[in-house]
Every structure is written in C-alpha cells, then in structure tokens.
C-alpha cells in the first residue's frame, strides 16, 4: 500500500478531505520525527514502539579493497511492533502453509 492509498483510506475513515488528511498526517509524522530526532522514544498503542538506539563504532572488513574500515557511531530508529499486531499478522499471506 503506498502513500496515496493510505491517504485515501484515512480520509474515508475520518471523513475529512484528502488534503486535510494529508496535512494532519504530515503534522503527526513531523511531531513523531521531531521526538525521535531528539532521541525520545515514542510508543503508539496497538502499533508498536519507536525507539532511538545508538549503534557503537564498528570495525568491518572490506574484502574487495582488502581494507579495514571504522564505521562511526550512528543513531538509528528501531521499531518493535506491539504484541497484538504481531500475533495478528503472524501468518498473513501464509495461511496455506
């Protein structure tokens, strides 16, 4: 499902216009991103938790250039799904197996 499908369905479900929906979603996303870029974790019920984790310095080997590289520390977003969502989708698309 791409972004415009999402907007379509969200507009239908909330009864707002698509333009309005897009604005609202944009606001929500920008608040989320702001919090995450401050390093603050955010949890959304029934969806999951977004957290920010610092990945430490790593030493990796590049076999092509025969060189060791030092990968700098990095801040990354991690998402852990809510357990309800996880069990709901456990076998989606794989019912036959």
């Amino acid at each position, binding site marked *: 499902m791409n972004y415009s499908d*999402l907007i379509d369905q969200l507009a239908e479900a909330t009864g707002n216009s698509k333009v309005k929906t897009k604005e609202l979603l944009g606001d929500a996303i920008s608040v989320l991103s702001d919090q995450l870029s401050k390093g603050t*974790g955010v949890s959304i019920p029934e969806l999951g938790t977004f957290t920010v984790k610092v990945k430490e310095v790593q030493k990796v080997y590049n076999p092509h*250039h025969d060189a060791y590289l*030092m990968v700098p520390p990095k801040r990354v977003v991690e*998402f852990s799904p809510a357990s309800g*969502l996880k069990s709901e989708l456990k076998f989606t698309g*794989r019912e036959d197996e």
Partner: protein
Amino acid sequence: MSEKITFKELVELIAKQSEQSQNATNSFIGELVQIIESGLKKSGSVSISGFGKFELRWMNEREGVNPQTGEEITIPGQNKIVFKPYKDLREQVNRPYAKLKTKVLDDTPVKKQKKETLPDDVQIKVTEKPKDERGTGKLIIPVPKLKFSPKKEPPKEDRDVVKEKEKVEDEQEIDDGEDMLIERPVPVPVQVMEPKESREEADLLPEDIFKEKPLEIPTEPIKKEEKKRAPLKKKAQKSSGMNWTYAAAAVIVAIAILIIFLMMQRTEVPTEVATTQNEEVVTPEPPAVPDPEPEEEVTVEPEAVPQPDDDPFPFELQSHLVRSGESHWTIADTQMGDPLLWPVIYELNKEQYNNPDFIRAQENLTIPSDADPDQLSDPQLEQVALGYLSVYRWTAENRPENAKYFLWAVGVYSMDILYSVENEVDANDWEFALRR
C-alpha cells in the same frame, strides 16, 4: 536516550501542531493504526512518505533453543513486522553524528613514512593539512569530518562562509595556514604601499587561500579587494575572473580614461592630486604586463604560483612508493583525504598496471598531493569522473556485471563527462547510470 514520552503527551503535541482537539487527534491516530494494520494484511507493506515503510517479512522455520530449559525446539515460520525509516527520518535522527565518516584503518604509521619520502615543499603542505593529521596512523575513534557531497556543493560565496566557520572553530588550523603561507614563495610586490594590506588579509583568511589553491581562477581575494576599490576597476576585475586578456584590455582602457580625466581635472583642481596619487602609481604598469592591476597581483600571485598554468592536470602531483597492504582505496584516503577519489590514482598510473583491483608493492605511483575532498574544483571533479570512466571501461571488458556502478559514479562527479560517452557505453549500464 532512554527517555520516552507517553502516548498522551504525543497526542497533546500533535494536537497542538495540527490545531485539532486531542480527541480528534486521538481518533485520527487510532484510524491510522487500523489502516496500517489492514494495509499490512492486504498487501504486506505500508509506506508513509517522509517517514518510513512498514513491511511484513516472512521468517522461515528454524532451529532454536529454549533459553529457559536449554531444550532444542523448532521455531515455526512466521511474519516479522519490520519498519524501514526513509532517508529523511534517518538523517534527521542521525544528525548529531552526521559528521562522522567511515575511516579506513591503516596499521602502519603512514605519516612517518611520508616524511621520509616526500620532497620538502610537498611535505610541508601535506603534513599541515588538518585532515591528514588525523587521517594517518592508528585511529581508534573516527573524528568528525564534513561530508563529501560533490552534487550539493554550495555556490562559492557559501563555501567561503563555511570555511570561515571552520576557521573560527579551529584556531590550530589558522596557525598552520599562516606558517604555510609564509613559507610559500611570495612574489615581490610591484607597489610598495599595498603588500602590507594584502598580507593582513592573507593572515585573516589563510584557510581560504589554501583551499582555493587548486582552483584555476582565484575569486575570493579579488572580491574582497573590490569592495575597497573604485567601481570602475570593480568592473574590470570581475571580468578578469573569466578571462585575463579581457581584463587586461578593460583595465588598460579604464586607466587610460582615468588618466585623461585626471589630467583635465588636475589643471582645474590641484587638491585632487593627493587623492589620486594611488592611481597614478598604476599608470606605468599596464602596457607591458598581462596582470595589469598591482593590487590584484599582490593578492592573486601567492595562489597562482604553486599551480603552474601550463599544466592542464588539476591536481598537484607527487610520487608514492606502494607498500604491501596498500590499495588504491587506502592511498586515496591517506593522501587525498577521501577514499572515493581513488580512480584519480588509477587514471594516472593505468599504463603501469591496467587492472584497477591490484597494485604491486614497491611500485612507484604518481598520485595527487593536494586534493581537498570537500572543495574540489570543477576540473578536479572532472578528473575524478575521468578516473571512474577508466575504471568503468576496464570493468566493462572484464567484469561487465559490475561496470554499471562505476558509470553511475562518473555522473556523480561530472554529468558532462557522463553524457559525452553516451554512445560508447552499454545501453543497460547507461540506463542505470542515469538513475539518481
């Protein structure tokens, strides 16, 4: 880092941002979650522009151990919900660390070796480059560094602003720059009054001058001077940035007009003489020399001298003895400051060894010595692009499946060069190279 905000606080923030009631926001997010869930159910992925993408990923059945009992169990295949943040979010979150860059580790102390092998004047420059100071030797923690982004290079004025910032941040660099400037051969200025002023300016901006050195046309000091000069000359100097001969002609004409004008004035108003004396010194100069402006000469020459005009190659060169364990990549990183510039070295030495993947120890390579990966000039960027093009050609013959990546890299450094080879390259590679 470990702090979290509650959902209630989040709803409050979003409600404030979107000027909606908290109830409305709450139900909006509820709907959003519902739709994400149903979207995942139906199509297996939900993408939210500017944020990220939720995806279902099937994990196959695998063997595992129950951590409590130590008993071996089979974990059945199941879906995993993954969230892939998009670039915007990744960059925003990683902003505090964005300046850190991957470093190539080199176990041998390169700096020491450099001192032994390089001629004196080259050595001074190389060792004084701040990035080399940290780029060499054993580095355990990478040091912040500006990202190299050839496509997003700001216009020159902006670059200068950035450089000024750097200068403020790092006093050490200024000192180094000063030393370097003094040791560099400064031509004897034509005018006696001017050099002091220009030296002061040079002291103010040693970094600028150092960084702009590889540029064909030094622009910054001229611009600075312009502000102090008469508007008539300003015009001439601007054009000098584009073409010396035009500038010379324009300035000669301008000065001639000025002289005539002054002669006429002087007969009427004798007090004018004092104010125009500065200009009069200029008059004997123009007919003979291609650099017509004495003040221009003073500020420009220190940059022009180390870069010979008749040499079309945009980098200064030095020779480098390959030691075992070194690669193009490591040499480019330690000597040029950016491993991605390695094709330049290949381009310079490809007659010696054809295959870009291997270089032999104890071989003498010609390598650039003065690259500043954050401030490459256009000719330098083109040279890098040509290097990638050579690598592409070799790879296309020997390992065609990998060649497209090098063609793509050509476009990163110079689209002109990429387009100039449109008809020679494989159609699939070409298509790939245009993806950006």
